């Protein structure tokens, strides 16, 4: 049922039989009598082109598939849209069939598609994040030959994927002949969102960038940054020295922003840096990027990169499993304890340290057959009692299997039962904490206490300045304070080593107090001032630090 598989898509000819098919489908769907078998039968008939009796087993039912696998469901939707497109095109070509009644039928059919999309949205809302792989496939499939109808379909899907159902429905209800530009402008933010999600989606987002005639430039930039990272002696050390690497990555990120402006605004590459707090993860991500964009990597580099990609996929899979376990209300405590132990153990097996980060040299010890073994172990994990009913396991598992069979052929054949390695599973930590960084969890908890403090927060009159401010002192005072912000921020670039100490000239002064007593003490709470602070912070974070610094008089 894959959208990529063009051979699986028949081109139903429009004839009275086709119209009857739509009529049946619409009436059954509308009355909710579309039993799984009936839907399957109808779809089968539609897709069997000229000989309905030879219809191949295309789909059990859309609804059943939807419950089982969101990605396939989305593919199913795409198939449905294809059918609608073929039918409509056929109808437009055939004067005899171009009747008002038939137009109504087609329109109803489209509305049904929207209903199905709504179902998809509901289903997806049960998981933490939407799966957009299917959408990417859809886009890739239609991009070479975008037609007006396909544009509409893509818009509908794009809106649906971002939960903008009102827009999706509006698009279906109004003209299908939206301009290509609209389609692109709709799709661009999706690219941004893709980066936010899992590594597969990030890869797709990168692929999207790469296909837009900027491949060489982007690849060059990233490779340059990657090589810089690789040559840094500090980079090889695990803890304590990763800051330099982070700064370089940030630099790389700002380069990407600049390059990507005309194609896609790669808004949030921080998703890349988030897991990079340890050098091992940094290394893994470097390999990952190399694989994604490199055009000149050696075979050996590619092999290493592919292994890194597979291990990253596995980590993602285990993290998903950990979320499932942590949020499940049906699992017993015993099952949860077992699952936690199994998942953490698996994490350690694939080269993570007890804090849930990849150890720097883990790739050197991973062979192709190891990958096969890991994949089989994951298959076993999914068969565990605690994984029963965990629907998201299927697409991720198949992603991993696909990656291994494609990139490391023969891995499964040579794999053996995973040996009982001597690993110590940390106690008093859940798999969720292990894979998703306990520090982030702590941060969220601390923040929640304040965010829930009052449901209707109001502006605060800041503490007043103990000394009487001079009327003309507004800007210098602001500059001093913003300088505090900026200095702290710039220190991450290594420009100032100890910014707050530099600011707090007297031993008794606390930096926070300095900042607090200076800015609002002058009643400078105006729009430009307060927003200006935020904007300067943003500019600095974005890489345009020079402008901010000069403006602040530093």
């Amino acid at each position, binding site marked *: 049922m894959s959208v990529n598989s063009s051979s699986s898509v028949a081109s139903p000819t429009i004839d009275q039989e086709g119209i009857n098919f739509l009529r049946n489908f619409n009436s059954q769907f509308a009355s909710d009598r579309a039993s799984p078998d009936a839907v399957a039968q109808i779809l089968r008939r539609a897709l069997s082109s000229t000989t309905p009796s030879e219809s191949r087993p295309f789909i059990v039912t859309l609804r059943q598939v939807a419950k089982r696998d969101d990605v396939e469901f989305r593919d199913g939707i795409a198939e449905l849209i294809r059918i609608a497109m073929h039918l409509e095109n056929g109808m437009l070509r055939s004067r005899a069939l171009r009747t008002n009644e038939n137009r109504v039928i087609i329109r109803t059919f489209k509305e049904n598609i929207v209903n199905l999309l709504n179902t998809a949205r509901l289903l997806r809302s049960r998981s*933490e994040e939407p799966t957009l792989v299917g959408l990417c496939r859809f886009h890739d499939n239609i991009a070479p030959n975008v037609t007006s109808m396909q544009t509409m379909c893509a818009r509908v899907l794009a809106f649906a994927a971002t939960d*903008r159902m*009102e827009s999706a429905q509006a698009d279906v209800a109004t003209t299908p002949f939206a301009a290509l530009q609209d389609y692109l402008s709709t799709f661009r*933010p999706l690219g*941004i969102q893709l980066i*936010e999600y899992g590594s597969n989606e990030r890869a797709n987002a990168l692929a999207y960038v790469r296909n837009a005639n900027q491949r060489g430039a982007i690849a060059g930039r990233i490779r340059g940054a990657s090589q810089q990272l690789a040559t840094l002696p500090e980079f090889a050390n695990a803890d*304590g020295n990763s800051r330099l690497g982070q700064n370089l990555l940030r630099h790389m990120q700002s380069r990407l*922003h*600049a390059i990507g*402006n005309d194609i896609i605004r790669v*808004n*949030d590459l921080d998703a890349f840096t988030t897991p990079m707090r340890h050098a091992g993860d940094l290394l893994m991500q470097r390999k990952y990027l190399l694989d994604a964009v490199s055009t000149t990597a050696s075979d050996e580099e590619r092999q290493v990169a592919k292994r890194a990609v597979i291990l990253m996929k596995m980590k993602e899979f285990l993290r998903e499993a950990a979320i499932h376990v942590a949020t499940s209300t049906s699992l017993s405590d015993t099952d949860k304890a077992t699952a936690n132990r199994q998942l953490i153990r698996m994490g350690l097996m694939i080269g993570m340290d007890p804090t849930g980060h990849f150890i720097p040299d883990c790739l050197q010890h991973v062979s192709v057959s190891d990958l096969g073994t890991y994949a089989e172990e994951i298959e076993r994990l999914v068969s565990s009692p605690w994984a029963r009913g965990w629907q998201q396991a299927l697409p991720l598992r198949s992603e991993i299997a696909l990656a291994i069979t494609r990139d490391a052929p023969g891995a499964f054949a040579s794999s053996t039962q995973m040996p009982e390695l001597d690993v110590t599973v940390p106690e008093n930590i859940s798999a969720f904490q292990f894979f998703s960084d306990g520090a*982030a969890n702590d*941060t*969220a908890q*601390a*923040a929640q206490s*304040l*965010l829930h403090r*009052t*449901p*209707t*927060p*109001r502006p*605060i009159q*800041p503490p007043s300045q103990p000394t009487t401010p001079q009327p003309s002192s507004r*800007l210098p005072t*602001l500059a001093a*304070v913003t300088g*505090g*912000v900026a200095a*702290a921020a710039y*220190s991450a670039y290594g420009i100032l080593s*100890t*910014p*707050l*100490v530099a600011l707090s000239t007297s031993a008794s002064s*606390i*930096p926070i*107090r300095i900042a607090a*007593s200076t800015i*609002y003490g002058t009643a400078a*709470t*105006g*729009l*430009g*001032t*307060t*927003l*200006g602070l*935020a904007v300067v*912070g943003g*500019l600095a974070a*974005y*890489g*345009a630090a020079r*402008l901010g610094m*000069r*403006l602040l*008089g530093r």
Partner: protein
Amino acid sequence: MVAQKEEVQKKFFDSSGAIVAALLCAQDAKGFIESAATYWLQLEKELYDASSPSFEEHAKQLSPEIQGYLHTLHDTLRRAQNILRAQFAAQDKEKKHTFAKEASFAVWQEAIASAWKNMARKDVITGMQDTRSLQEIWNIPWPFMDRSYQVAVSLFDQGHYYDAHAVFMLLHFLSPTVFAYVFGEASCQHVRGNFFDALANYLIATQLEPENPVLAFQLACCYQELGEQTSARLVFDYAIECAERQQVVNIVERAKEKKSLLPALKAA
């Protein structure tokens, strides 16, 4: 030179408010962003005193960075509005709560449409020298702000930090002196590992609640993550001091624990 710098700074701060306002309202901001970047480059030119590289070369490098930031800002603010529209619609459909008319998305749409109309009549970038918040200028009612805040908090609770961040940022820009808005924005950035951005916003939040122990604790954690051990130690001490005074026991304990994990100070 000092007077000139102050003048440029004032122009920059004034233009920041106006540019954010325009980014909030504009559907397609491409042309506007180019103008804004050009304006900021003019300000930069007034202060540029380096002989090498030439200002033209310098501007060539700086311009895409500024434009990139403004594009990002625009996208985030648009996304926040889309999130609110969808969330409000879902809430209305559920009918669990009854919301005042002032808390509807239509109120917001009317407000920004009207604001955009006003802005179109004059030079957007330099024409806005109001010291009030955008919320006040545009008459955005508090029920709308409160409902939006609840959406942001709910997204945060559910772990959707990316979306929560967009909404908090929108609220922060609308009413910059509400502590919870800027703190929420910083928290989202913090949880997602953007310590650098989180730090800047936490520092802005300290202006509003300078003795908030949780805030000081989070700030110190950010410093620690960024490798600024000296600053981290200093701010952990401050967090402990505030927490002890306000008897926030868990912060005292956690700050002490975190501080104990910092590398020992080198002997002077």
